[in-house]
């Protein structure tokens, strides 16, 4: 099995049993790896009877067939589980070095099941896999644990949880390589519920590549495209992902003060350009990445990776805050506590609006960046109001009598694009399988940047086609596993050919997108089995009913209903959003429901 390592590592923390067995070749070809393979294994492992924070839930860490091959951005890996925040199928993926190292240890997949009696960590070395006592690590923050366990980017890589994961915070991330995160949906809480503090990997095996000549050509062509694209060769390296802050704000699609406005008057002060001019120390890159979008920032109080665009927005415009240093410091604290920055910032913004509208008695008000640190510490340790913040914005807003003020879909906080100014993005959020997400396809390219060509962002008719294509494409890329920023300069046909070169299995571009469609439908089946229905494919009432009051998107609401109807039909689903048998048959999924 060229490309795939061909092995699954399976660890039961309840019994301490460590097993290895061959990867199912048929599943690998149909679902590739990462998110796709994770979803397929999760389907068999975790049914609707399983509580996300019970020992019966599993964590499935998965690399992909391109991981560690040296193809551009082939550093990523994912974790799949049932989300404690949303109750949906969940996968989160991350870059850095850990994924590459895990694949080089000779595995495609690590399944962690059960619950250890006492805190433990897993060590995966070329000659031995072992469990170790983690009593002295429990309670430590991410940076300290990572250092103590011997993080060395090219040789030994550490993945761990911080206090938030230990305290079962539903927004808890799993962190790798110190400051990278598998962030969304609370996978850190699942890891905490298993008393698993960390997983350390050392690997030595490079994956075998079948067609070296073609692979070299794909490396060359991909490098050429990434260098030619101003986005991947200039904008991202120079300004990071926050390069889009001003662009999104200019079109009136930057959610501000918990989506009450769609333009932030101080966007420029928290933009990528501002970060570069003020607190940026340098940019850096994940393994095998020529783009190097990662920021290293420094304020008087902290120095570290980030912040990304979404984080900058979450603690910036979303909280009505223009203090960039405060954003950098909130980001660093989230990383050290092991918390998802998007959900944390947006949950705090929700608390701010709840307070200003009189539902909640707290000091949190828009613009109070001075309270970020306290709120995040309280969240991670579930102290005071932090006990409610730790539950995410939907549970928080519901408890205080105003669930409509949670800017979330299926319980996952929405990222930094206002669907009223980007209609396709609204459909994308509403239908995303893990809840509102900008990484399950993104209409930024088509509706704003003109990638590959610009379409009208307010157009509703036909939008479902674009959304479906981009959702399928994203699912395929997440299954390879590559970084989606590569896709800003390189089309899917290159990924398909690189995959064919590595594995020797012929994947046309259409085949690769079809893998994504298969993954998307499988995730849908999973959520339906969990009891989700078409009613959950919606947006917060504010976006459906309250028109944007000023700016370039003035007068617009999200016109979800017609897009959603078209979407279901175009997906081959019935009016209730259930995939029809014919569609499942086409995708090789029929056996799962018969």
């Amino acid at each position, binding site marked *: 099995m060229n490309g795939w390592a061909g092995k699954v590592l399976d660890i039961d923390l309840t019994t301490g049993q460590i097993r290895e067995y061959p990867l199912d070749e048929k599943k690998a070809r149909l679902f590739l790896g990462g998110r796709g393979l994770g979803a397929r294994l999760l389907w068999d492992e975790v049914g609707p009877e399983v509580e996300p924070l019970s020992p019966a839930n599993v964590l499935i860490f998965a690399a992909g067939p391109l991981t560690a091959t040296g193809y551009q951005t082939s550093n990523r890996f994912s974790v799949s589980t049932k989300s404690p925040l949303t109750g949906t199928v969940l996968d989160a993926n991350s870059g850095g070095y850990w994924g590459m190292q895990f694949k080089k240890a000779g595995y495609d997949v690590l399944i962690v099941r059960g619950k250890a009696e006492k805190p433990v960590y897993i060590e995966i070395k070329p000659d031995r896999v072992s469990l170790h006592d983690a009593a002295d690590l429990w309670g430590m923050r991410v940076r300290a644990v990572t250092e103590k366990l011997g993080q060395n980017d090219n040789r030994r890589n550490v993945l761990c949880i911080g206090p938030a994961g230990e305290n079962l915070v539903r927004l808890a991330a799993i962190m790798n390589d110190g400051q990278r995160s598998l962030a969304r949906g609370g996978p850190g809480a699942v890891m905490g519920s298993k008393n698993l503090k960390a997983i350390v990997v050392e690997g030595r095996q490079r994956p075998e590549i079948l067609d070296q*000549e*073609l692979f*070299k*050509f794909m490396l*060359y062509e991909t490098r*050429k495209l990434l260098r*030619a694209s101003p986005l991947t060769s200039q904008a991202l390296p120079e300004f990071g992902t926050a390069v889009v802050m001003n662009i999104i704000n200019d079109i009136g699609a930057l959610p501000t003060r918990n989506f009450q406005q769609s333009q932030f008057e101080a966007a420029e002060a928290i933009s990528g350009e501002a970060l570069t001019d003020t607190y940026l120390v340098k940019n850096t890159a994940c393994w095998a990445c020529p783009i190097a979008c990662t920021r290293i920032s420094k304020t008087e109080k902290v120095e570290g990776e980030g912040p990304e665009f979404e984080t900058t927005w979450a603690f910036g415009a979303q909280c009505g805050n223009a203090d960039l240093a405060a954003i950098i410091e909130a980001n660093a604290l989230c990383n050290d506590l092991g918390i998802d920055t998007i959900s944390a910032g947006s949950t705090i913004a929700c608390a701010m609006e709840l307070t200003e509208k009189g539902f909640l008695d707290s000091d949190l008000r828009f613009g109070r960046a001075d309270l970020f640190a306290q709120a995040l510490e309280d969240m991670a340790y579930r102290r005071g109001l932090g006990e409610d913040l730790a539950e995410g914005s939907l549970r928080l807003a519901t408890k205080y009598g105003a669930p409509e003020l949670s800017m979330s879909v299926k319980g996952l906080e929405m990222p930094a694009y206002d669907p009223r100014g980007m209609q396709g993005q609204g459909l994308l959020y509403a239908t995303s399988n893990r809840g509102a997400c900008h990484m399950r396809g993104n209409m930024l390219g*088509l509706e704003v940047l003109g990638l*590959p*060509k610009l*379409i*009208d962002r307010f*157009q*509703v*008719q*036909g939008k*479902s*086609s*674009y959304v479906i*294509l981009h959702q*399928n*494409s994203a699912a395929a890329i997440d299954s390879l596993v590559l970084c989606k920023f590569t896709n800003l300069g390189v089309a*899917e*046909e290159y990924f*398909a*050919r690189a995959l064919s070169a590595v594995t020797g299995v012929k994947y*046309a*571009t*259409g*085949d690769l*997108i079809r893998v994504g469609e298969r993954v998307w439908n499988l995730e849908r089946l999973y959520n339906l089995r969990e009891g989700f229905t078409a009613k959950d494919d919606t947006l917060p009432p504010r976006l459906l009913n309250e028109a944007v009051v000023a700016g370039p998107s003035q007068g617009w609401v999200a016109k979800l209903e017609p897009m959603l109807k*078209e*979407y279901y*039909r*175009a997906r081959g689903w019935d009016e209730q959003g259930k995939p029809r048998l014919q569609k499942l048959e086409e995708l090789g999924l029929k056996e799962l429901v018969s």
Partner: protein
Amino acid sequence: MIDERIFEQFKEIGRDLYDAGLISSHGGNISVRLGDRVVIKRRGAQLGRLKPHDLIETGLDKNDSGVALASTELLAHRTIYKQTPALAIVHCHPRTAIAFSLSRDEIVPIDNEASYLLKKVPVVSEEYPSGTPEMANKLAAILQSYKIVMLRGHGSFAIGQTLDEAFHWTTTLEESCQIALYAKLINEPFIEYRKMSEAYGKW
């Protein structure tokens, strides 16, 4: 009811195809996929002079009265949409590319732009008449892996996310073939300037 913005895209691309000499007065056809619907040019309408009533909407799978009015290439368009990720199709008659298609099974560009964007364009013979299921399936199978394909002696089918994108591949191919034609006329030894260019033919 077809959104005015969608008609504008058809009108612009249709006009450009005619102006660029890529179609005769009544030749070619273009379409987009809108969810489970297809919007395609009316049979006999002039792409260079499209009016709103020249756009026909019909089902991707299901027939309705629209098929009575649609372009004769409807089957090919539907098949391509069902078997590939395409959301838009441009079919036209690029003259230089057609001339090259008469003598080769693939067009491998020698200019920089098309080498970069297309790498290689397959050429297929119409063993079955255009508009038959056999031909439609053949085209769709090739477009699983390529952005544009030539029907020998007939014309090109290009796919994209938008009409604009499919038009881009079409003009890139025709420009590349014109450059190749000039190079042939100059008839001097070719100086290879592209690294790993031998791989383009294997694309």
